[in-house]
């Protein structure tokens, strides 16, 4: 998972980190990085899509079994 996160382009990793670890709202992220909220939302969605693709289906399956 860590590798996958590190492989994300910086723009995508930035919004993901601010959301998941710093627990900021979309609005806060938008004002911190200086882009419209719509951009935050689309970057987050694309970051997660890319992350799901990068992660093997097995790691998702493992987590689901927990």
């Amino acid at each position: 998972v860590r590798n996958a996160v590190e492989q994300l382009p910086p723009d995508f990793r930035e919004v993901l980190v601010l959301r998941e670890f710093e627990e900021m709202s979309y609005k806060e992220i938008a004002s911190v990085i200086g882009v419209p909220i719509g951009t935050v939302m689309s970057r987050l969605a694309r970051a997660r899509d890319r992350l799901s693709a990068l992660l093997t289906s097995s790691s998702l399956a493992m987590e689901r079994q927990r």
Partner: protein
Amino acid sequence: MMCDDLARDVEAYADRELDADSTAAIRLHVSACASCRQRVAERETLGRLVRSVPYRMAPDRLRARVVAQVERRRSLSHLLVRTAAAVLIVTVGVGIMFVRSATIQSDALVEDLVESHVRSLLAEHLFDVQSTDQHTVKPWFLGKLDFSPPVIDLAPVGFPLVGGRLDYVSGQPVAALVFQRQKHTINVFVWPASNQGSGTRERTIRGFNVRHWVRHSMSFWAVSDLNDVELNEFVRTYQMWPP
């Protein structure tokens, strides 16, 4: 609520960014739809996985150095922007002196408004605040603008308010209120009027209809791809609201 709506909102739902109504609608849908339930579960699993990655904050000293550098760079770019703006103001000023025509200035403004309208539709940036409640939308502008735009909802006559956002027109921040008529979006740009206009001005640019009026010292510009008849009805109702 349909599966398509869920696909669009699943991120905001899992991030708890949706308003109470939409959240309730998704819960209801998810309880009845197995494939959407799985979609939400996968999204939540992904969130847990990401948060399980060890996350270390930079040490205080490094953090402070990075922040200081960013601030320095930011103030430099502010300076550049201001200089550019000053040059632009001088250029525009000289231009206006030579041309001495208010029409051209207003043409540029109308172009600007149509651009903003198109941009709002293209860049998935229709709202900063998505709500059909005028009492949610109006307070949202507090502290973001140095004026308080009047916000109304015309849902009873078929033009529901769907949200608002902060926009920039001719270099100044303005309020943009978003209304819907079936599949058509109407952006109403609002800012304090510099003069008292009379009547409604009509323009069409690249297929977009533009209507302008001044009321209670506020300048209103409605932009939409909606047809003339319905947009005029919208404007008439807007001007006389509440009935």
